[in-house]
């Protein structure tokens, strides 16, 4: 009995520290990818990847078939031009899956956590890792370059490829232009804040946001900054564009429409919470989500409200995806993992909720 107080203190402290480390909580939000035909949504979340029929919300398969607690997936799955689905995991493994069955084609061990999606072209796969490496792989997962490109900090952002040049932003605050043939650096530009999303490449200009609370336009040829405008919070996602405007949100909870030529503000919207995911432009409407769990549809030209839809439970950090007249959203921390909302009306069409085991 004399030892009880000491043991109690030990257990209390151990429990508190374990809870503090957040070892049981998800460390990211669902990653969502769609096949080119728009028939199947691939959702990576926690211990499984789900393939869901976009017409009905029915589950087609899961990978692995039984959830494996040692494996976690959050990076958005990518459908490759040669008809495979690539999924990166926190277990360092990039796996190629058969999109119809969810069976493995091949795997590549990247040696460190995969947070961001790979870029898949008809010839190669470019994979960023949290270890700061960018790998170039052939379509069977074999390295192409003699050595991966390496930056000092994590690479979470997918690269963008144009005319033999890869553009990738790093958590080391640099935007890099690399030769796709060998990974050598063409230029690098420090932007003053971590970059965790891909740049938008439009007519020779790279547009991106950083954690230094800014949106920047960079000349893709030589890497000089053309303009930068401050935001109220960190910018996590790739800007989207339509009709000469850039659409981007920040974690302070502001959504901006900026003029592409100089970054000046066209309009601004203040929704109900922080904005982490990228927006989506379909026709005359811009869709974006907030941490508070609301999907907003606003007029792309003026920013006026069209409709809004709120999830019953959970936050929205995942980028919305368009599919067959619907908008797909993937809540974090709710019961439903995927919800299809009618793009015209904002009415829910179906939701996918995985079986609890």
């Amino acid at each position, binding site marked *: 009995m*004399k*030892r009880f107080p*000491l043991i109690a*203190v*030990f257990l*209390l*402290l*151990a429990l*508190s*520290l374990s809870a*503090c*480390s*957040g070892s049981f*909580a*998800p*460390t*990211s*939000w669902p990653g969502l990818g769609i096949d080119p035909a728009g028939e199947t949504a691939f959702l990576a979340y926690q211990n499984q990847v789900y393939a869901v029929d976009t017409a009905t919300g029915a589950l087609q398969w899961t990978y692995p078939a039984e959830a494996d607690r040692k494996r976690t997936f*959050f990076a958005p799955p990518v459908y490759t031009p040669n008809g495979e689905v690539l999924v990166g995991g*926190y277990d360092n493994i990039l796996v190629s899956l058969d999109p119809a069955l969810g069976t493995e084609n091949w795997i590549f061990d990247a040696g460190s*956590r995969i*947070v961001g999606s790979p870029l898949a072209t008809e010839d190669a796969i470019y994979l960023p890792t*949290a270890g700061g490496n960018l790998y170039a792989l052939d379509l069977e997962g074999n390295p192409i370059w003699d050595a991966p490109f390496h930056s000092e*900090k*994590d690479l*979470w952002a997918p690269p963008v490829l144009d005319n033999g040049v890869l553009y990738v932003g790093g*958590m080391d*605050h640099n935007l890099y232009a690399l030769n796709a043939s060998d990974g050598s650096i063409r230029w690098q530009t420090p932007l*003053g*804040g*971590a970059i*965790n999303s891909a740049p938008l490449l439009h007519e020779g200009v790279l547009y991106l946001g950083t*954690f*230094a*609370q800014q949106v920047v336009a960079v000349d893709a040829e030589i890497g000089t900054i053309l303009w930068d405008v401050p935001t109220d*919070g*960190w910018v*996590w996602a790739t800007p989207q564009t339509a009709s000469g405007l850039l659409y981007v949100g920040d*974690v302070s909870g502001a959504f901006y429409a900026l003029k592409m030529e100089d970054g000046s503000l066209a309009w601004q919207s203040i929704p109900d919470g*922080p904005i*982490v995911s990228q927006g989506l432009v379909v026709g005359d409407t811009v869709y974006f989500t907030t941490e508070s769990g609301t999907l907003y549809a606003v007029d792309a030209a003026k920013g006026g409200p069209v409709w809004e839809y709120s999830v019953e439970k959970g936050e929205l*950090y995942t980028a919305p995806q368009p599919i067959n007249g619907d908008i797909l959203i993937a809540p*974090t921390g709710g019961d439903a993992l995927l919800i299809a909302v009618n793009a015209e009306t904002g009415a829910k069409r179906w939701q996918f909720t995985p079986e609890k085991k």
Partner: protein
Amino acid sequence: MWETYIIEPMLNTLLWIYTILGQNFGLAIIVFTILVRLILYPITAKQQESGKAMQELQQSKEWKEIQKKHKDDKEKLAAAQMKLYQEKGVSPFGSCLPSLIQFPIIIGLYQAVIRALADTPLPLLTLSKSLYPIINASKLIPLNSKFLWMDLGQPERLQVLGIGIPVLAILVVVTTYLQTKLMAIPTGGDNAQAAQMTGMMNLYMPLMLGYFAYAYAAGLALYFVTSNLMTIIQYAAMGKLEWSNLLPGSK
């Protein structure tokens, strides 16, 4: 409340120190710990006074008399002891309070360290909401988590010939043992229960903190080692260290 009054101030203080110390998070933890120990110094001094008063009380004639008188009745003994505490103005918990204050600091510091070293999206998002505007930390993120051979966000191991040696955990055990031995106030010769309790504390505390240092982020272990050394230095400055406790045969 915990978030607002414990974690965020600790986190932002750590980040502020990090910025002025050339973006070295290990040094930031060490300096932060020293600051905390200096702030807690009045309580530490009070603990020493309380311990001394308790020691004198337990060696007094009245104490020994009630031990003898109620040796077969624990309830009466406890009541008599409590009455004597009140008469002499001694708080039986006076020497425990500083130890209890340590727990929220340990937990808060651990949370602040883990949050500052966020390396996945959701924790990083949480970090972004915890920053004070004056820190301008968004330009510092992600932090440099490397200190000497350690990654402060991970359990520490020094690789020697392919074997991971938990150097910090060993240092935590050694410094905690030294601290408890050097600061232990000799108990009255006939107070076997107190001596047994002290002996248990001397054994279990180093092992308990050593386990935490072994299993949790190296930043926490760095706090333990710095805190132990600071405590020893503070007591040495007050001339209160009991070096004789290190001699073989001492309890």
